[in-house]
Protein backbone atom coordinates (compact mmCIF):
# COMPACT_ATOMS: atom_id res chain seq x y z
CA UNK A 1 0.00 0.00 0.00
CA UNK A 2 2.88 2.32 0.87
CA UNK A 3 4.53 1.40 -2.43
CA UNK A 4 1.38 2.21 -4.38
CA UNK A 5 1.12 5.58 -2.72
CA UNK A 6 4.81 6.28 -3.44
CA UNK A 7 4.28 5.30 -7.05
CA UNK A 8 1.36 7.70 -7.34
CA UNK A 9 3.42 10.54 -5.88
CA UNK A 10 6.37 9.84 -8.20
CA UNK A 11 4.17 9.57 -11.27
CA UNK A 12 2.42 12.81 -10.34
CA UNK A 13 5.71 14.66 -10.09
CA UNK A 14 7.14 13.07 -13.22
CA UNK A 15 4.11 14.02 -15.27
CA UNK A 16 4.31 17.49 -13.78
CA UNK A 17 7.77 18.03 -15.25
CA UNK A 18 7.20 16.26 -18.56
CA UNK A 19 3.91 17.98 -19.36
CA UNK A 20 4.71 20.34 -22.35
CA UNK A 21 2.45 23.09 -21.01
CA UNK A 22 4.07 22.90 -17.63
CA UNK A 23 7.49 22.78 -19.25
CA UNK A 24 6.82 26.13 -20.96
CA UNK A 25 5.53 27.43 -17.67
CA UNK A 26 8.64 26.26 -15.90
CA UNK A 27 10.99 27.93 -18.41
CA UNK A 28 9.81 31.39 -17.46
CA UNK A 29 9.73 30.58 -13.76
CA UNK A 30 13.19 29.01 -14.04
CA UNK A 31 14.58 32.12 -15.76
CA UNK A 32 13.43 34.33 -12.87
CA UNK A 33 14.55 31.67 -10.41
CA UNK A 34 18.07 31.91 -11.78
CA UNK A 35 17.99 35.72 -11.56
CA UNK A 36 16.78 35.55 -7.95
CA UNK A 37 19.44 32.95 -7.18
CA UNK A 38 22.12 35.31 -8.54
CA UNK A 39 20.74 38.06 -6.29
CA UNK A 40 20.73 35.71 -3.30
CA UNK A 41 24.31 34.65 -4.06
CA UNK A 42 25.29 38.32 -4.38
CA UNK A 43 23.73 38.98 -0.97
CA UNK A 44 25.57 35.99 0.51
CA UNK A 45 28.84 37.26 -0.99
CA UNK A 46 28.11 40.69 0.50
CA UNK A 47 27.59 39.17 3.97
CA UNK A 48 30.76 37.09 3.62
CA UNK A 49 32.74 40.18 2.59
CA UNK A 50 31.30 42.12 5.54
CA UNK A 51 32.28 39.32 7.88
CA UNK A 52 35.86 39.18 6.57
CA UNK A 53 36.18 42.97 6.89
CA UNK A 54 34.92 42.74 10.48
CA UNK A 55 37.55 40.08 11.17
CA UNK A 56 40.21 42.43 9.75
CA UNK A 57 38.87 45.18 12.01
CA UNK A 58 39.19 42.82 14.99
CA UNK A 59 42.84 42.24 14.11
CA UNK A 60 43.58 45.97 14.35
CA UNK A 61 41.78 46.37 17.69
CA UNK A 62 45.11 46.45 19.55
CA UNK A 63 46.29 49.35 17.37
CA UNK A 64 43.10 51.29 18.03
CA UNK A 65 43.33 50.64 21.78
CA UNK A 66 46.92 51.92 21.82
CA UNK A 67 45.91 55.04 19.88
CA UNK A 68 43.00 55.76 22.24
CA UNK A 69 45.25 55.24 25.27
CA UNK A 70 47.79 57.65 23.81
CA UNK A 71 45.31 60.31 22.68
CA UNK A 72 42.91 60.03 25.60
CA UNK A 73 39.77 60.15 23.51
CA UNK A 74 37.81 57.78 21.32
CA UNK A 75 36.19 60.56 19.30
CA UNK A 76 36.64 60.01 15.58
CA UNK A 77 38.61 62.52 13.50
CA UNK A 78 35.89 62.71 10.87
CA UNK A 79 35.89 66.48 10.76
CA UNK A 80 38.32 68.92 12.35
CA UNK A 81 36.50 72.02 11.15
CA UNK A 82 35.00 72.72 14.59
CA UNK A 83 35.97 71.49 18.02
CA UNK A 84 32.51 70.15 18.73
CA UNK A 85 32.67 68.05 15.55
CA UNK A 86 36.17 66.80 16.37
CA UNK A 87 35.43 65.98 20.00
CA UNK A 88 31.66 65.77 20.45
CA UNK A 89 32.05 64.02 23.80
CA UNK A 90 34.40 66.63 25.26
CA UNK A 91 32.96 69.84 23.87
CA UNK A 92 30.85 71.98 26.10
CA UNK A 93 27.09 72.12 25.62
CA UNK A 94 26.27 74.70 23.00
CA UNK A 95 29.73 74.50 21.39
CA UNK A 96 28.05 74.26 18.03
CA UNK A 97 26.83 77.82 18.49
CA UNK A 98 30.10 79.28 19.67
CA UNK A 99 32.27 79.20 16.56
CA UNK A 100 31.22 82.57 15.22
CA UNK A 101 28.70 85.24 16.11
CA UNK A 102 25.16 84.10 15.35
CA UNK A 103 26.46 80.98 13.65
CA UNK A 104 24.22 77.97 14.02
CA UNK A 105 25.53 74.93 12.21
CA UNK A 106 27.51 75.86 9.14
CA UNK A 107 29.22 72.55 8.59
CA UNK A 108 27.46 69.69 6.84
CA UNK A 109 29.16 67.26 9.23
CA UNK A 110 26.70 68.53 11.83
CA UNK A 111 24.14 66.36 10.10
CA UNK A 112 26.17 63.29 11.01
CA UNK A 113 27.68 64.14 14.37
CA UNK A 114 25.32 65.59 16.90
CA UNK A 115 26.27 66.14 20.53
CA UNK A 116 24.85 63.28 22.62
CA UNK A 117 21.74 64.60 24.36
CA UNK A 118 22.31 62.91 27.69
CA UNK A 119 25.93 64.01 27.82
CA UNK A 120 25.47 67.60 26.84
CA UNK A 121 22.23 67.99 28.78
CA UNK A 122 23.37 67.16 32.30
CA UNK A 123 26.79 68.66 31.55
CA UNK A 124 25.25 72.08 31.50
CA UNK A 125 24.30 71.58 35.11
CA UNK A 126 27.72 70.26 35.96
CA UNK A 127 27.03 66.64 36.90
CA UNK A 128 26.62 63.45 34.97
CA UNK A 129 24.05 61.90 37.25
CA UNK A 130 21.02 63.94 36.42
CA UNK A 131 18.92 63.27 33.36
CA UNK A 132 16.60 65.41 31.36
CA UNK A 133 13.49 63.27 30.94
CA UNK A 134 12.06 65.33 28.11
CA UNK A 135 15.18 64.75 26.05
CA UNK A 136 16.05 61.22 27.08
CA UNK A 137 15.57 58.45 24.52
Amino acid at each position, binding site marked *: MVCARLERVVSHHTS*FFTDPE*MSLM*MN*RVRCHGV*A*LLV*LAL*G*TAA*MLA*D*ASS*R*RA*AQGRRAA*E*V*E*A*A*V*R*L*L*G*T*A*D*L*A*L*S*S*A*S*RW*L*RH*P*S*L*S*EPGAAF*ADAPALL*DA*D*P*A*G*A*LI*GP*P*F*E*VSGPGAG*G*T*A*GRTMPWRSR
Partner: protein
Amino acid sequence: MRRHLALARFALGSGGRRAGRTLTLTLALALVTAAFSAVLFLTEALRREYRLGVGLLPDLTVQRLVAGRPGLIAEAHARAIAAIRGVTRVEPRVWGYYFVPALAGNFTVVGADFAGPSAGVNPGVVLGEGRLPGRGATGEAVLGEALAGFLGLSVGDAIELPVGNGSQRFEVVGLFRSSVALWSADVLLLSLEDARRFLQVPEGEATDLAVRLSTPDEATVAAGKIAELVPGARIVDRQLLDRTYDLTFDTRGGLMGAMLLPALAAFLVLAWDRLTGVGPGERREIGVLRAVGWKTSEILEARLWENLLIGAYGAGLGLLGAYGYVFLLGAPGLREVLMGWSSLYPAFDLAPAVTAGQVLVVGTLVVVPFVTLSLVPAWHATTRDPHGLLRGTT
Protein backbone atom coordinates in the same frame (compact mmCIF):
# COMPACT_ATOMS: atom_id res chain seq x y z
CA MET B 1 1.62 23.27 -6.57
CA ARG B 2 0.57 23.15 -10.19
CA ARG B 3 -2.04 25.83 -9.56
CA HIS B 4 0.42 28.12 -7.77
CA LEU B 5 3.02 27.68 -10.52
CA ALA B 6 0.43 28.48 -13.15
CA LEU B 7 -0.48 31.65 -11.26
CA ALA B 8 3.21 32.55 -10.91
CA ARG B 9 3.68 32.03 -14.63
CA PHE B 10 0.68 34.23 -15.38
CA ALA B 11 2.10 36.89 -13.04
CA LEU B 12 5.47 36.77 -14.81
CA GLY B 13 3.75 37.11 -18.18
CA SER B 14 1.68 39.98 -16.83
CA GLY B 15 4.83 41.75 -15.62
CA GLY B 16 6.47 41.12 -18.98
CA ARG B 17 3.53 42.64 -20.87
CA ARG B 18 4.02 45.85 -18.86
CA ALA B 19 7.81 45.71 -19.10
CA GLY B 20 8.34 49.48 -18.99
CA ARG B 21 6.30 49.92 -15.83
CA THR B 22 7.82 46.87 -14.18
CA LEU B 23 11.34 48.05 -14.94
CA THR B 24 10.65 51.59 -13.72
CA LEU B 25 9.14 50.31 -10.48
CA THR B 26 12.06 47.94 -9.90
CA LEU B 27 14.65 50.66 -10.51
CA ALA B 28 12.81 53.21 -8.35
CA LEU B 29 12.52 50.70 -5.53
CA ALA B 30 16.22 49.80 -5.90
CA LEU B 31 17.19 53.50 -5.74
CA VAL B 32 15.12 54.16 -2.61
CA THR B 33 16.51 51.03 -0.94
CA ALA B 34 20.07 51.97 -1.93
CA ALA B 35 19.72 55.55 -0.61
CA PHE B 36 18.42 54.45 2.79
CA SER B 37 20.76 51.47 3.04
CA ALA B 38 23.85 53.55 2.15
CA VAL B 39 23.21 55.95 5.03
CA LEU B 40 22.39 53.06 7.37
CA PHE B 41 25.54 51.14 6.38
CA LEU B 42 27.76 54.22 6.76
CA THR B 43 26.44 55.31 10.15
CA GLU B 44 26.42 51.76 11.52
CA ALA B 45 30.04 51.25 10.38
CA LEU B 46 31.13 54.54 12.02
CA ARG B 47 29.33 53.59 15.23
CA ARG B 48 31.14 50.27 15.18
CA GLU B 49 34.50 52.03 14.77
CA TYR B 50 33.74 54.31 17.71
CA ARG B 51 32.84 51.33 19.90
CA LEU B 52 36.32 49.86 19.30
CA GLY B 53 37.96 52.49 21.48
CA VAL B 54 35.28 53.60 23.89
CA GLY B 55 36.11 50.95 26.51
CA LEU B 56 39.49 52.55 27.19
CA LEU B 57 38.20 56.00 27.98
CA PRO B 58 38.53 57.28 31.54
CA ASP B 59 35.54 56.50 33.72
CA LEU B 60 35.03 60.21 34.33
CA THR B 61 36.41 63.27 32.58
CA VAL B 62 36.34 66.43 34.66
CA GLN B 63 36.33 69.78 32.88
CA ARG B 64 35.84 73.24 34.28
CA LEU B 65 33.41 75.52 32.53
CA VAL B 66 34.27 79.20 32.41
CA ALA B 67 31.74 81.51 30.77
CA GLY B 68 30.06 78.44 29.33
CA ARG B 69 33.22 77.12 27.68
CA PRO B 70 35.76 74.60 28.93
CA GLY B 71 38.51 76.50 30.72
CA LEU B 72 41.71 75.27 32.30
CA ILE B 73 41.38 73.30 35.50
CA ALA B 74 43.81 73.51 38.42
CA GLU B 75 45.91 70.36 38.91
CA ALA B 76 45.37 70.84 42.64
CA HIS B 77 41.84 69.48 42.12
CA ALA B 78 43.42 66.20 41.01
CA ARG B 79 44.79 65.61 44.49
CA ALA B 80 41.43 66.34 46.10
CA ILE B 81 39.62 64.04 43.65
CA ALA B 82 42.22 61.28 44.15
CA ALA B 83 41.28 61.26 47.86
CA ILE B 84 37.67 60.29 47.04
CA ARG B 85 36.95 56.67 47.90
CA GLY B 86 36.89 54.46 44.81
CA VAL B 87 39.09 56.73 42.71
CA THR B 88 42.18 54.80 41.64
CA ARG B 89 43.93 57.40 39.48
CA VAL B 90 43.55 61.01 38.35
CA GLU B 91 45.54 62.17 35.33
CA PRO B 92 45.75 65.85 34.46
CA ARG B 93 45.74 66.05 30.63
CA VAL B 94 46.98 68.78 28.35
CA TRP B 95 45.50 68.94 24.90
CA GLY B 96 43.89 71.49 22.64
CA TYR B 97 43.50 72.80 19.13
CA TYR B 98 45.71 74.75 16.80
CA PHE B 99 44.02 76.68 14.03
CA VAL B 100 45.92 76.80 10.76
CA PRO B 101 44.53 79.36 8.31
CA ALA B 102 46.11 77.52 5.35
CA LEU B 103 44.32 74.38 6.49
CA ALA B 104 41.10 76.27 7.09
CA GLY B 105 40.70 74.05 10.09
CA ASN B 106 42.09 72.91 13.40
CA PHE B 107 44.52 70.23 14.19
CA THR B 108 44.49 68.54 17.56
CA VAL B 109 47.53 68.95 19.79
CA VAL B 110 47.88 66.19 22.39
CA GLY B 111 50.43 66.12 25.18
CA ALA B 112 51.35 62.54 26.07
CA ASP B 113 52.54 61.85 29.59
CA PHE B 114 55.20 59.21 28.98
CA ALA B 115 55.74 58.88 32.72
CA GLY B 116 52.04 58.21 33.21
CA PRO B 117 49.30 56.48 31.22
CA SER B 118 51.15 56.61 27.88
CA ALA B 119 54.17 54.77 29.30
CA GLY B 120 52.84 51.32 28.49
CA VAL B 121 51.99 52.04 24.85
CA ASN B 122 53.98 49.99 22.38
CA PRO B 123 55.14 52.41 19.63
CA GLY B 124 55.33 49.59 17.07
CA VAL B 125 51.59 48.97 17.43
CA VAL B 126 50.38 52.51 16.95
CA LEU B 127 53.06 54.03 14.70
CA GLY B 128 53.52 53.18 11.04
CA GLU B 129 56.94 54.75 10.96
CA GLY B 130 59.45 56.20 13.45
CA ARG B 131 59.16 56.38 17.24
CA LEU B 132 57.35 58.24 20.01
CA PRO B 133 58.91 61.41 21.49
CA GLY B 134 61.56 60.51 24.04
CA ARG B 135 60.82 61.00 27.76
CA GLY B 136 61.91 64.52 28.66
CA ALA B 137 62.89 65.31 25.05
CA THR B 138 61.75 68.60 23.58
CA GLY B 139 61.00 69.57 20.00
CA GLU B 140 59.86 66.09 18.91
CA ALA B 141 56.47 65.36 17.39
CA VAL B 142 54.42 62.49 16.01
CA LEU B 143 51.94 63.38 13.27
CA GLY B 144 48.71 61.87 12.05
CA GLU B 145 48.77 60.54 8.52
CA ALA B 146 46.43 63.13 6.99
CA LEU B 147 48.19 66.04 8.72
CA ALA B 148 51.63 64.86 7.58
CA GLY B 149 50.31 64.38 4.06
CA PHE B 150 48.75 67.85 4.02
CA LEU B 151 51.96 69.51 5.26
CA GLY B 152 54.15 67.30 3.07
CA LEU B 153 56.18 66.04 6.03
CA SER B 154 57.81 62.70 6.66
CA VAL B 155 59.95 61.29 9.47
CA GLY B 156 63.12 63.32 9.93
CA ASP B 157 61.61 66.57 8.60
CA ALA B 158 61.19 69.62 10.81
CA ILE B 159 58.40 72.16 11.07
CA GLU B 160 58.29 75.55 12.74
CA LEU B 161 54.91 76.60 14.10
CA PRO B 162 54.07 80.13 15.28
CA VAL B 163 53.18 80.33 18.97
CA GLY B 164 52.27 83.67 20.51
CA ASN B 165 54.92 86.19 19.49
CA GLY B 166 57.52 83.57 18.66
CA SER B 167 57.62 80.14 17.09
CA GLN B 168 58.45 76.61 18.08
CA ARG B 169 60.39 74.08 16.00
CA PHE B 170 59.48 70.40 15.98
CA GLU B 171 61.18 67.44 14.39
CA VAL B 172 58.87 64.75 13.07
CA VAL B 173 60.02 61.57 14.80
CA GLY B 174 57.05 59.34 13.92
CA LEU B 175 53.86 58.95 11.92
CA PHE B 176 50.69 57.23 13.09
CA ARG B 177 49.57 54.06 11.33
CA SER B 178 46.95 54.46 8.62
CA SER B 179 44.83 51.86 10.43
CA VAL B 180 44.25 54.36 13.27
CA ALA B 181 43.69 57.33 10.95
CA LEU B 182 40.09 57.64 12.15
CA TRP B 183 41.43 58.67 15.57
CA SER B 184 44.74 60.31 14.69
CA ALA B 185 44.37 61.92 11.25
CA ASP B 186 44.70 65.50 12.51
CA VAL B 187 46.84 64.86 15.60
CA LEU B 188 50.12 66.48 16.55
CA LEU B 189 51.41 64.39 19.46
CA LEU B 190 53.99 66.07 21.67
CA SER B 191 55.52 65.40 25.05
CA LEU B 192 53.50 66.84 27.94
CA GLU B 193 56.03 69.64 28.47
CA ASP B 194 56.10 70.62 24.79
CA ALA B 195 52.30 70.57 24.58
CA ARG B 196 52.09 72.82 27.65
CA ARG B 197 54.46 75.33 26.05
CA PHE B 198 52.84 75.10 22.62
CA LEU B 199 49.28 75.48 23.91
CA GLN B 200 50.39 78.03 26.52
CA VAL B 201 48.91 76.11 29.43
CA PRO B 202 50.56 77.40 32.64
CA GLU B 203 52.24 75.01 35.07
CA GLY B 204 49.80 73.73 37.66
CA GLU B 205 46.87 73.77 35.24
CA ALA B 206 45.49 71.22 32.80
CA THR B 207 42.89 70.98 30.03
CA ASP B 208 40.92 68.37 31.93
CA LEU B 209 41.28 65.56 34.45
CA ALA B 210 40.86 61.89 33.53
CA VAL B 211 39.53 59.92 36.50
CA ARG B 212 39.72 56.13 36.79
CA LEU B 213 37.55 54.31 39.30
CA SER B 214 37.93 50.94 40.97
CA THR B 215 34.22 50.27 40.30
CA PRO B 216 33.02 52.03 37.15
CA ASP B 217 29.40 51.36 38.12
CA GLU B 218 29.82 53.91 40.92
CA ALA B 219 30.62 56.68 38.44
CA THR B 220 27.42 58.60 39.23
CA VAL B 221 28.21 58.67 42.96
CA ALA B 222 31.81 59.74 42.31
CA ALA B 223 30.59 62.42 39.85
CA GLY B 224 28.36 63.86 42.55
CA LYS B 225 31.25 64.07 45.01
CA ILE B 226 33.52 65.66 42.37
CA ALA B 227 30.83 68.23 41.56
CA GLU B 228 30.85 69.25 45.25
CA LEU B 229 34.66 69.51 45.25
CA VAL B 230 34.99 71.40 41.97
CA PRO B 231 32.26 74.01 41.61
CA GLY B 232 31.29 74.64 37.99
CA ALA B 233 32.76 71.35 36.84
CA ARG B 234 31.41 69.49 33.85
CA ILE B 235 31.76 65.77 34.38
CA VAL B 236 31.51 63.37 31.48
CA ASP B 237 30.65 59.81 32.43
CA ARG B 238 32.08 57.10 30.14
CA GLN B 239 29.20 54.71 30.74
CA LEU B 240 26.80 57.46 29.85
CA LEU B 241 28.87 58.20 26.76
CA ASP B 242 28.93 54.54 25.88
CA ARG B 243 25.16 54.37 26.03
CA THR B 244 24.44 57.63 24.31
CA TYR B 245 27.18 57.85 21.70
CA ASP B 246 25.17 55.31 19.78
CA LEU B 247 22.74 58.11 19.10
CA THR B 248 25.24 60.73 17.99
CA PHE B 249 25.43 59.57 14.43
CA ASP B 250 21.72 59.71 13.93
CA THR B 251 20.15 62.03 16.48
CA ARG B 252 20.31 64.87 14.04
CA GLY B 253 18.58 63.89 10.83
CA GLY B 254 19.55 67.30 9.37
CA LEU B 255 21.14 67.15 6.00
CA MET B 256 20.98 63.39 5.69
CA GLY B 257 17.24 63.48 6.10
CA ALA B 258 17.04 66.27 3.56
CA MET B 259 19.13 64.23 1.15
CA LEU B 260 16.81 61.30 1.48
CA LEU B 261 13.63 63.33 1.11
CA PRO B 262 13.56 63.18 -2.71
CA ALA B 263 13.99 59.41 -2.58
CA LEU B 264 11.29 59.12 0.05
CA ALA B 265 9.01 61.38 -1.98
CA ALA B 266 9.60 59.25 -5.09
CA PHE B 267 8.69 56.15 -3.15
CA LEU B 268 5.56 57.74 -1.76
CA VAL B 269 4.53 58.92 -5.24
CA LEU B 270 4.97 55.39 -6.49
CA ALA B 271 3.01 53.99 -3.59
CA TRP B 272 0.28 56.59 -4.17
CA ASP B 273 0.20 55.64 -7.83
CA ARG B 274 -0.31 52.03 -6.81
CA LEU B 275 -2.93 52.96 -4.24
CA THR B 276 -5.09 55.28 -6.28
CA GLY B 277 -5.99 52.65 -8.80
CA VAL B 278 -4.89 50.26 -11.45
CA GLY B 279 -4.41 51.41 -15.03
CA PRO B 280 -7.01 50.75 -17.77
CA GLY B 281 -4.98 47.82 -19.13
CA GLU B 282 -4.81 46.10 -15.77
CA ARG B 283 -8.49 46.89 -15.15
CA ARG B 284 -9.42 45.16 -18.42
CA GLU B 285 -7.16 42.26 -17.56
CA ILE B 286 -8.84 41.79 -14.21
CA GLY B 287 -12.24 42.06 -15.94
CA VAL B 288 -11.31 39.30 -18.40
CA LEU B 289 -10.03 37.08 -15.61
CA ARG B 290 -13.20 37.61 -13.58
CA ALA B 291 -15.33 36.97 -16.67
CA VAL B 292 -13.61 33.65 -17.40
CA GLY B 293 -14.17 32.52 -13.84
CA TRP B 294 -11.06 33.43 -11.87
CA LYS B 295 -11.69 33.80 -8.17
CA THR B 296 -10.69 36.97 -6.28
CA SER B 297 -8.09 35.01 -4.34
CA GLU B 298 -6.50 33.75 -7.58
CA ILE B 299 -6.26 37.24 -9.07
CA LEU B 300 -4.78 38.57 -5.84
CA GLU B 301 -2.29 35.70 -5.72
CA ALA B 302 -1.15 36.46 -9.27
CA ARG B 303 -0.69 40.13 -8.33
CA LEU B 304 1.13 39.08 -5.19
CA TRP B 305 3.63 37.02 -7.21
CA GLU B 306 4.19 39.88 -9.66
CA ASN B 307 4.80 42.49 -6.97
CA LEU B 308 6.82 40.16 -4.77
CA LEU B 309 9.17 39.67 -7.68
CA ILE B 310 9.46 43.42 -8.31
CA GLY B 311 10.03 43.96 -4.58
CA ALA B 312 12.67 41.23 -4.34
CA TYR B 313 14.57 42.52 -7.37
CA GLY B 314 14.36 46.14 -6.16
CA ALA B 315 15.41 45.38 -2.57
CA GLY B 316 18.20 43.01 -3.64
CA LEU B 317 19.66 45.38 -6.21
CA GLY B 318 19.34 48.33 -3.81
CA LEU B 319 21.11 46.53 -0.96
CA LEU B 320 23.94 45.28 -3.16
CA GLY B 321 24.28 48.70 -4.79
CA ALA B 322 24.44 50.45 -1.39
CA TYR B 323 27.06 48.02 -0.10
CA GLY B 324 29.25 48.47 -3.17
CA TYR B 325 28.79 52.24 -3.05
CA VAL B 326 29.77 52.55 0.62
CA PHE B 327 32.39 49.86 1.17
CA LEU B 328 33.93 49.31 -2.25
CA LEU B 329 33.74 52.83 -3.71
CA GLY B 330 34.03 54.65 -0.36
CA ALA B 331 30.67 56.48 -0.62
CA PRO B 332 31.81 59.26 -2.99
CA GLY B 333 29.52 62.27 -2.66
CA LEU B 334 27.79 61.10 0.51
CA ARG B 335 31.09 60.90 2.38
CA GLU B 336 32.20 64.42 1.42
CA VAL B 337 28.85 65.87 2.42
CA LEU B 338 28.72 64.04 5.74
CA MET B 339 32.35 64.61 6.71
CA GLY B 340 32.02 68.38 6.48
CA TRP B 341 34.35 71.03 5.16
CA SER B 342 37.47 69.90 6.92
CA SER B 343 40.67 69.91 4.90
CA LEU B 344 41.91 66.81 6.68
CA TYR B 345 39.94 63.77 5.69
CA PRO B 346 41.16 60.57 7.28
CA ALA B 347 41.73 57.77 4.79
CA PHE B 348 40.05 54.76 6.36
CA ASP B 349 38.48 51.45 5.51
CA LEU B 350 35.25 50.99 7.36
CA ALA B 351 34.24 47.59 8.64
CA PRO B 352 30.63 46.92 7.65
CA ALA B 353 28.23 46.17 10.45
CA VAL B 354 25.91 44.51 7.92
CA THR B 355 24.43 41.25 9.15
CA ALA B 356 21.90 38.83 7.71
CA GLY B 357 19.36 40.20 10.22
CA GLN B 358 19.82 43.76 8.97
CA VAL B 359 19.51 42.68 5.35
CA LEU B 360 16.31 40.85 6.24
CA VAL B 361 14.92 43.87 8.10
CA VAL B 362 15.70 46.33 5.28
CA GLY B 363 14.35 43.88 2.71
CA THR B 364 11.17 43.37 4.70
CA LEU B 365 10.71 47.11 5.30
CA VAL B 366 10.87 47.71 1.55
CA VAL B 367 9.06 44.68 0.15
CA VAL B 368 6.16 44.28 2.59
CA PRO B 369 4.73 47.83 2.35
CA PHE B 370 5.22 47.86 -1.42
CA VAL B 371 3.43 44.55 -1.94
CA THR B 372 0.67 45.48 0.50
CA LEU B 373 0.10 48.82 -1.18
CA SER B 374 -0.02 47.25 -4.60
CA LEU B 375 -2.60 44.63 -3.56
CA VAL B 376 -5.14 47.20 -2.39
CA PRO B 377 -6.16 48.56 -5.85
CA ALA B 378 -6.19 45.05 -7.31
CA TRP B 379 -8.56 43.94 -4.56
CA HIS B 380 -10.75 46.99 -5.24
CA ALA B 381 -10.89 46.12 -8.94
CA THR B 382 -11.76 42.47 -8.33
CA THR B 383 -14.79 43.42 -6.25
CA ARG B 384 -16.32 45.33 -9.19
CA ASP B 385 -18.56 44.11 -11.97
CA PRO B 386 -16.47 42.32 -14.65
CA HIS B 387 -18.60 43.79 -17.48
CA GLY B 388 -18.01 47.28 -16.18
CA LEU B 389 -14.29 46.59 -15.92
CA LEU B 390 -14.21 45.31 -19.53
CA ARG B 391 -16.19 48.28 -20.83
CA GLY B 392 -14.13 50.63 -18.69
CA THR B 393 -17.19 52.14 -17.04
CA THR B 394 -16.32 51.24 -13.42
